[in-house]
Structure formats: structure tokens, C-alpha cells
């Protein structure tokens, strides 16, 4: 062929617009290595992030407390902490870090899936309004008693599914809408459900409403308790594993529904499963921590640039890196401006908005 790509130190300079791509073989090796590093980083992050907080507790004490509670007290390096400090680590900090990891993984995976299901690189549960719908559902159950005793998570799931259905209906079902149309429709859906949530919060007028207001609309992890963490983690884990089964379908969506069908994929079934699973996972995340935005945009795009857009590796990598990312965002959010605590959703929006602009630019090139 005419123009040979310039090879420099394993990377290929794209002759047309200078976009750098990494050779395939290098990517396979680096994907496995990155997963190992990220998984190790997650374990370290869970422990290290638990060190941060108002009370000064040493790293080994935190590690020992965690080990003692998970039944590995025999290898704990330091003697037990006083009851109060032990509770601070085990009942407050540690579940909050785990919830951050769970929600981060959930939103990152949902973002990657929504980008493939809508064939739109700007998709994210928050930007498409699924998070807002889930918030509305949760708040409706919590404050209005809608549904007669169904759980908060079920309300959030119903809300998320309804908003997704509204989004797809507005986009015209199976057709492929242009990225700008998907995003604008998402803004519409998201604003509508956010307004509904505000109305419910205002008219409910309880003592908790001011706090609840910021909590549900901005997204924060301050509600982390063990009951919340275990339920959320179980739903997210099962959902993410189920989505992994559909990774081949997500890859095959690259060139559209007909192309995927011709590759042997049952497109209708795969899309329905993916939409239901993302709604369930988003709902679980929102029920525990409100609507945290942009993680689904930031993390999968970073992983695609670093490794590969193919979902067999993209999904697990996004999950682990999303988990690490939200752990540190939330740690920053709770300690950076003590005694004030910022909702994690505010920080992700501060980071996410510029990233959105970058993706938009990349899309237009």
C-alpha cells in the first residue's frame, strides 16, 4: 500500500490525522497486565482509603481491624483497637469505601454498555437520564409511599426502566439516532425526571428534605451502611457478571444491528437483556448513593484509549478502574475540605464535564 505507518517504539503514528493506535499484539499483553495492576490497585485502595478520616488511626491498625472482621485475625499485625475506633473503621469508613467501589464499578460498566447499546460514545447512565429516573422512583417510594411497601431499590429500578423506555421511545426504537440526538434526548429525559424528583422532595417537606435534596440530586456516598453495601454489591456483582455473558453481542454491535445479526447475534434479545440489566445495576447504584454522573463516560473511554474497545476486556477493566476511581473521588470529597463534605457527584461532574468535551472533540475528528 501507499503510505506505511511510521513505527516508533511499538506505537504506530496514524498517517492521516495523527491519532496514535497501539498494535494489536501489544494490546493483548498490556490488557492482561493492566487488569492485574488495576485489581491489585483496588485491594490497596480499599485499605488505604480507609485510613483517611477525622480520627487518626494508623495504617496497620486499620489493616488489622479489617483482617479481624473478615476472619483473618490470626495474621493481624497489631492488637485490637478500642471499641469506638474499631466501629469507626468497620461500621463507617470501610463500608463507605466498599460502597464507593461497588457504585464506581457499576456506573463504569453501565456506561460502557449504554455506549454500545445506543451506538453512541457520549452515553452514560446519568447523561441519558436513567439515573434521574431511578432517583425519581426511589424518592417516590421513600417520600410518597408509592407502590405500597415496595423497597427503595425496586422503586429505583422501576424509575430507571421507565426513563430508559421513555428515552428509547423518543429515539424511535431500533433505529440508530445520531450522537447529538441521543445526548439531547438524554438531557430532556434527565431534566424531566430531575424536576419530578424536586417536586416530590419539595412537597414532602419533612425535616430530612434539605439533606435528602442534595443527596438524591447530586449523588453522595454518606449513606453507606453494611445493609446497603451488601445488597448493592450483590446486585451489582450478579448484574456485571451477567453482562459479561453478552460481551460478544456488544462487540458485534460495532457496525449496527444488521451487521450484528449477520454475525449470528440475536440482537433483539441481547438488547432487551442489556437494557434490563443496566437498569437494574443503575437502580441499585442510585438507590444507595443517588445520581453520580460521568463515571460511565470517563472510565470506559480511558480504558478504550489505554487498551482496546472490545468488550471482553473493556467490561472487567472498566469495573475495576471505575471502582478505584470512585474510591479516591469519594475519599477526596470527604477529607479535602474538612469539616465540609462535598457530594462525590459534584467532583465527578467537575472532572467529567471536561472529559465530555474531549470525547465530543474526538467524535468530530
Amino acid at each position, binding site marked *: 500500500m501507499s503510505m506505511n505507518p511510521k513505527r516508533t517504539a511499538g506505537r*504506530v503514528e496514524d498517517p492521516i490525522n495523527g491519532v496514535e493506535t497501539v498494535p*494489536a499484539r501489544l494490546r493483548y499483553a498490556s490488557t492482561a497486565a493492566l487488569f492485574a495492576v488495576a485489581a491489585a490497585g483496588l485491594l490497596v485502595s480499599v485499605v488505604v482509603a480507609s485510613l483517611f478520616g477525622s480520627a487518626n488511626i494508623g495504617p496497620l491498625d486499620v489493616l488489622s481491624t479489617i483482617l479481624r472482621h473478615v476472619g483473618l485475625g490470626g495474621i493481624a499485625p497489631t492488637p485490637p483497637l478500642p471499641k469506638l475506633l474499631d466501629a469507626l473503621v468497620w461500621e463507617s469508613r470501610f463500608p463507605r469505601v466498599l460502597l464507593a467501589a461497588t457504585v464506581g464499578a457499576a456506573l463504569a460498566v453501565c456506561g460502557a454498555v449504554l*455506549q454500545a447499546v445506543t451506538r453512541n460514545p457520549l452515553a452514560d447512565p446519568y447523561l441519558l437520564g436513567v439515573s434521574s429516573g431511578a432517583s425519581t422512583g426511589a424518592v417516590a417510594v421513600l417520600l410518597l409511599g408509592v407502590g405500597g411497601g415496595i423497597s427503595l431499590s425496586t422503586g429505583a429500578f422501576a424509575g430507571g426502566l421507565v426513563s430508559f423506555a421513555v428515552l428509547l421511545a423518543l429515539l424511535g426504537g431500533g433505529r440508530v439516532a445520531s450522537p447529538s440526538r441521543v445526548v439531547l434526548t438524554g438531557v430532556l429525559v434527565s431534566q424531566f425526571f430531575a424536576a419530578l424528583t424536586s417536586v416530590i422532595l419539595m412537597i414532602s417537606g419533612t425535616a430530612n428534605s434539605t439533606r435528602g435534596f442534595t443527596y438524591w440530586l447530586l449523588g453522595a456516598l454518606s449513606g453507606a451502611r453494611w445493609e446497603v453495601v451488601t445488597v448493592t454489591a450483590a446486585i451489582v456483582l450478579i448484574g456485571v457478571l451477567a453482562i459479561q455473558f453478552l460481551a460478544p453481542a456488544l462487540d458485534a454491535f460495532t*457496525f*449496527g444491528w444488521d451487521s450484528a*445479526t449477520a454475525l*449470528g447475534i440475536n440482537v433483539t434479545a441481547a438488547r432487551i437483556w442489556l437494557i434490563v440489566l443496566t437498569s437494574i445495576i443503575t437502580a441499585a447504584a442510585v438507590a444507595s448513593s443517588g445520581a453520580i454522573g460521568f463515571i460511565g463516560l470517563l472510565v470506559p473511554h480511558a480504558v*478504550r484509549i489505554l487498551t482496546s474497545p472490545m468488550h471482553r476486556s473493556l467490561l472487567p477493566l472498566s469495573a475495576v478502574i471505575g471502582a478505584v476511581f470512585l474510591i479516591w473521588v469519594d475519599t477526596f470529597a470527604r477529607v479535602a475540605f474538612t469539616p465540609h463534605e462535598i457530594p462525590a457527584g459534584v467532583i465527578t461532574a467537575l472532572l467529567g464535564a471536561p472529559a465530555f468535551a474531549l470525547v465530543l472533540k474526538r467524535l468530530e475528528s
Partner: protein
Amino acid sequence: MGHIIAGGVSWSVKGHRLLDSIDMVAQAGKTVGLLGPNGSGKSTLLRLLAGLRRPDAGTVRYDDTSLRDLSRRMLARRLAVVEQDVSAHNHVNVRQVVELGRTPFRGRFDALTGHDRRVVDAALERVDIADKQDQSWNTLSGGEKQRAQLARALAQEPREILLDEPTNHLDIRHQLELLDLLRSLDITCVIALHDLNLAVRYCDHVVILDHGMVVAAGIPEAVLTPDLIESVYGVNVLVDREPTTDILRVTYLAATPPRRPSRKAIHLDPR
């Protein structure tokens, strides 16, 4: 390679009949051209042959198996489809595009096997795009995209392949190379084509569609008469033999004034 038989295939959208009782046969290993003006139903027929749409009436059979009795995955292991003008929503590279061709053979959690990689390498070589395999799909020219899609189709190791105007974005050299390549493979090909001279050179059999009906079928030399071309395409032509190669040659002279004001061509999007 296997043969494809369509019997009495009809398809309508919103009350408009886009295909009307189509009968056609693609013999094993032969190259069949689907010809006809825009809106005559070529792309729609290819979609029905590929099982992407279900006919209202009639059957499509691969060898002796009806399309209805083949699962999508089993069909994808024997039949590849090359669509027109597809676009990717993410930054896949060329090799990853070709690897998609292995989808019907891969388990949900399987990595690519050595065999998969060899098939992908061979497909990249065959369409002369191996040197761009690490390049992002979105940076390719129209012709390179078309060749990458063909490589993806070849990676499916198909017995039959359906192509919708595959020469569209190709320069002359790559048009000839692509059609030579398709002929050299032991694969039954059904190709929607616009260029009648390419059809004469490369097709064993042509099917002429007009307003969703088969108006003629047979070997190109017998079918492509000036009268037929005028009535289907509305173009006056000269058909003769090129003196040095002795290949049939169609020379377009002029568009004829519209003769059928009552019959409106249907331009519904078949999707």
C-alpha cells in the same frame, strides 16, 4: 460453497410491495449479479436472503435447508454479508474489525485461538490491507473500509457471501481486484452491482430487478440486450464486443425520456 434458492419471495412495507414473488437461484460456487436501478429492490432482496428480514411469503433455502430452520449462529458460520456504507461508533482498529468475523465460532469467554488468528491474518492479506491492521477504522478511506469489511466477511470462512454494491467506493484497480478475488474463491457470491460492464466480466449469472420484480435472468450475454437495458434503466445503449478482448461491452448513449408516468418508483427506506 452451497447454493442459494429463493422461491416466491415477497416483502412489503406499509402496504407497498417492495419485492414481488422473486424466484432466483445461485448455483454453488457461482457469482450471481443482482442488477437494476435504484429502488428496484436489490438491497432488500439481499436482506431477505441474509435472513435479516423475514419475507411475507416464499422461502429462502441454503442447499436444502430453509432459512427458518437455521439458527442465526449456524447461518453466520456459512454465510457472510458485506453491507454498504457501515459506520462504527467506537474506535476499533482494522484487525479488531476482521476479528469480529470469528464471532460465530467463538464461545462467550473464549480468547481467539491460533486457528482464529491464522484465519484473520489470511483474510487481511487477501484484501491487501494487512499493513493497516493496527490503524483505527475511522481513519480509513472509503475503499479501505470496504476491503476491511470484506476481510471480516472472509474471516467467517463462508460458503456463501452476499455483497451490496461492494465496488462503490473503490478505485478501478481495487474494483477489479475485489471482483477477481471473489471469483477466485470457492464461495457462492450474490453481488448487487450498478456497473453493467463489471457484471458482464465477472458474473456467471445475472438477475435483473425492476420495481421489485425479476424481469430477466440468465447469463449476462443473453440477458443484457439494448431493449432490456432501455426498458429497465431508461437508457439508450450500444451493446457490442470489445474488439481486442471479445468481451461484451455496454456503451451508454443517452437517458430516454420517461415513458411510464403512471408508475411511480417506490423509494421507501427498506429498513
